[in-house]
């Protein structure tokens, strides 16, 4: 029995429609509840999966563990210019269309391998586009998604302290130390 059925049963028992049923249901099925002017919870769930595909959990946590979906939604809303916001918002459907064309299913329905395959292609596409674009041409939506994923993850607590090394108070500066390959990168 799924949650919708369960709620339906409660409705039957009570002999009527449940007030706020849509709200209850939204708990299990991605809903259209707005997180800000531009995005809803469906979008955030999608951004989480895009971020996790770009930076998956390995021996260290992935982008989802850094709440990358919320971060992307907030940054595009607060820090992007209107023209970039438009490109980004349209990018959501562009990305899904690319997925449907390739796998006959949406990005959320695709499996992890398919997602990686698709985003690898989109990454090559954005790289070529960025290389040849004129300064006044719009940015590529996937470049924005990738940039925000990297920024959000590597400045997050898990990213900075687990994937990278972070020291709040170095307490020294040494201008000359031998370079050892293979050490983790510093977060700042």
């Amino acid at each position, binding site marked *: 029995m799924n949650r919708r059925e369960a709620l339906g049963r409660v409705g039957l028992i009570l002999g009527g429609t449940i007030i706020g049923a849509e709200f209850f249901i939204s708990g299990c099925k991605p809903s259209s509840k707005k997180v800000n002017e531009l995005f809803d919870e469906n979008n955030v769930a999608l951004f989480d999966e895009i971020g996790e595909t770009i930076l998956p959990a390995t021996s260290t946590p*992935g982008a989802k563990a850094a709440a990358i979906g919320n971060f992307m939604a907030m940054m595009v809303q607060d*820090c992007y210019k209107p023209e970039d916001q438009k490109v980004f918002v349209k990018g959501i459907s562009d990305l899904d269309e690319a997925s449907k064309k390739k796998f006959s299913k949406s990005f959320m329905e695709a499996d992890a391998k398919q997602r990686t395959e698709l985003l690898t292609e989109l990454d090559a596409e954005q790289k070529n586009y960025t290389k040849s674009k004129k300064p006044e041409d719009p940015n590529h939506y996937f470049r924005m998604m990738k940039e925000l994923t990297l920024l959000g993850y590597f400045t997050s607590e898990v990213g900075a302290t687990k994937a990278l090394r972070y020291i709040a108070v170095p307490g020294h500066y040494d*201008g*000359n130390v031998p370079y050892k390959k293979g*050490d983790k990168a510093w977060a700042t």
Partner: protein
Amino acid sequence: MANLNTDSIKDRTFDAIVIGSGMSGGWAAKELTGKGLKTLMLERGRDVKHIKDYPTTNMYPWEFEHRGEMPMAVQEANPIVNRCYAFHEDAAHFFVKDKEHPYIQDKPFDWIRGYQVGGKSLLWARQTQRWSDFDFEGPARDGFAVDWPIRYQDIAPWYSYVEKFAGISGNKDGLAELPDGEFLPAFPLNSVEQYFSKHVKSKYGRHVISARCAHLSKPNQIHLDQGRAQCQERILCQRGCPFGGYFSANASTIPWALKSGNLTLRPHSVVESIIYDDKKGKATGVRVVDANTKETIEYYAKIIFVNAAAMNTNLVLLNSTSHRFPNGLGNDSGVLGKYVAFHNYSAHISAQYDGMLEWTTDGRNPAGGGYIPRFRNLHKQETDFLRGYASGFSAYRWKQQNWDGVGSDFKDNLAKGELSPWHVGSHMMGETIPKEASYVKLDDKLKDEWGVPLLKISMDYDDNDAKMKKDYIEQLTEMFTSAGFTNIKAESDNRAPGLDIHEMGGARMGNDPKTSVLNKWNQMHAVNNVFVTDGASMTSTSCQNPSLTYMAFTACSADYAVSEMKKGNI
């Protein structure tokens, strides 16, 4: 009622008033209170107590909502201050927003301000070099502005005095153009900075030294007595330092002055004007508008130090009119508000170095790297432009990252600490010539919300600046090339004056009351109990950073003012 009035006047009467609480105002307060003067310090902004009022100082990167970025709405509402390199989420609360105190740009000018106790001393880049006779003799030798009324030997003891207290790190480099000071250990040059230093010394006889900066690399007892501790190399200085690792008025001079019991600090106090008594022939106090209540209050004192920061000091003086001084306080010469100038920071160069790959750095350098003292037109005029420039120089390696692809290999690559080859960078710090045509003045109609006229600002680059910039790019390009640096890219930006945050002049010092506002003690020629010891007092701009010189002038001037007062001359 009569008694009440008398009491009220008594409560509003001090030995000294200091207008402004930043870099130089803090020093004025420290020196005057230290000599036993009951001193009132007026600050137009809010109070910022050391540590307690640094809201972001201990925040982790992930605790900033936008991870440091400024939201677009804030950027769009603040085109001016948003151009400042330090205007980010961690320190934006210490900057004046564009609408908070409007001004009129007769020519484009980015006026970057910090209206709070401590002023811009919380936010400064902390570079501290002495000026030398190559600077103080400059106007006389090269025929611009007026002769400085002092020489290096007059101010050298006061440099020592303020350096010991503030804490300046540096090496004794033995250069006449950049005199040595009372140094704490320098922050070291890294391997490529050292390499470049050796190279330009042997090939050009020029110098690349450890940048001198106001950081406690190794504190002395006097710094511990201030409650400050060793710099911890966090490089988050613009947030305010919980260790007091760098010099700010908040960490150093103001708490010291408060400890004396002689300081009354009044924030939220916009100084409208200085009150001049025609009969006494002296300034008797200042008229303040309470920033919040808009109430006008007068305060009285025997001596007045004006340290509102260069542009606002001009504003206060120009707005202080009387029968005796219809064109601004002490303005017999007519030069008040004129001969303002700034520093030319509008060029920078970057390049790559493929050597020394076996070396890197550990930690973060608070000094920022190296400093190339002025080498142009030093001993004699040798180019088709006047004066010269200092240059920053630093070398660094960044994470060598392949940004292609997505997925687990991509992520692992990004987390690896593989470093790029060395990158080097330099920026220009050029002296500009103060000119009569460069001015600040008051608008005759428009006033701010405190009833003070809006300031009109007009200064610009000239042909001399363009030639100097060209020379900087040529010289640094040649030095970089001969050092084996590759991929050299020189960039010239079209920033407006002001973004250097080194605006100076308007109430210049000079020997002749007919052509200057202040004498060699930073004392007004025409009003002997008013002293101006901030950037407004500067006769020329040098190419060194000016804050240390403001500090030295202030301490020197306060010492003179008190001795004159004790002699009964003021």
